[in-house]
């Protein structure tokens, strides 16, 4: 005889629970943490490189870099002044998950840091589904990707707490309708804090740095 057993359990429940453990571990050490997500080439590592020198002597920063195979990104973060840079190779997986972040946290003496920057794998789909336990999720969009990305990747745009629009120095050279882009963002994530900037020229980056410092100090 067949019996139906009701369950109603979120499929990623196990990951979500581990994410909560990661969060508790970060909180008890007094570390504020962000999860930076973007497509490949949007400028995740470049923004981190521009951010670290501006936080020097203000915040102690650790960077966890998720990548499929290499340690190029963690090396760049260390060069730019991260007090610790840990590479997590996902072995082909397209996203970081809570287990992977837990493994990275175990390699860090969290009491030594004020801010943890997690750089997720370059991907606009999967990272949105896997919570890590970080305090804020940040999406970097970039001008050359095109203005239709909110419409094509709604899951990513909906789940983030802050949006960086990078490479604004390229606006004169590519067809990018800012009002169309902003309308998609507004539907998916009303009022999300947005930082138009150029990691190359440094334009607009001060507002981003201020936001980070305020959040670390608990004044967000």
């Amino acid at each position, binding site marked *: 005889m*067949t019996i139906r057993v009701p369950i109603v359990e979120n499929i990623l429940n196990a990951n979500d629970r581990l994410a909560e453990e990661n969060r508790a571990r970060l909180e008890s050490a007094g570390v504020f943490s962000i999860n930076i997500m973007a497509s490949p080439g949007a400028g995740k590592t470049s923004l981190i490189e521009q951010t670290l020198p501006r936080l020097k002597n203000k915040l102690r920063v650790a960077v966890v870099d998720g990548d499929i195979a290499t340690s190029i990104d963690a090396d760049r973060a260390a060069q730019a002044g991260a007090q610790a840079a840990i590479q997590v190779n996902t072995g082909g997986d397209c996203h970081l998950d809570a287990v992977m972040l837990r493994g990275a946290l175990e390699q860090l003496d969290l009491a030594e840091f004020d801010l943890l920057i997690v750089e997720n794998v370059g991907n606009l789909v999967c990272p949105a589904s896997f919570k890590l336990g970080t305090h804020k999720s940040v999406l970097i969009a970039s001008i050359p990707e095109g203005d239709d990305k909110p*419409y094509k990747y709604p899951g990513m745009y909906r789940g983030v707490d802050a949006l960086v629009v990078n490479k604004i120095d390229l606006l004169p050279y590519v067809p990018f309708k800012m009002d169309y882009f902003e309308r998609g963002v507004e539907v998916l994530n009303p009022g999300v804090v947005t930082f138009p900037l150029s990691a190359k020229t440094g334009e607009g980056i001060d507002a981003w740095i201020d936001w980070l410092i305020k959040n670390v100090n608990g004044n967000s």
Partner: protein
Amino acid sequence: MHELAVTQSILDISLRHAKEAGAKQITAINLVIGEFASIVDDSVRFYWELFTVGTIAHGSQLNFERIPGEMTCTSCKFSFHPASADFSCPNCKSEFVQITKGDEFRVDSIDVE
């Protein structure tokens, strides 16, 4: 690759609940998956065949109940399926709309013997 982790989670949840129910065999898994959950059914089925070998879920049927995405206009309350390139309300052209369906991503029930 996302599907691999998802399939493992579905199996873990199913086996845990089957054990609690004292089941000898799982015959079906009933999933409710919204359009925005970005899961490819065929990939999950492929992994399912591999992962269930040697478990009481081997040979079970995966049933996907797909929930289409839905947006609702906050101005006129009209509900519609979002077109890929435009989020405005097809009824009153308002740009004030919210996503109201399509995030579902759960194991709803299992059928056991």
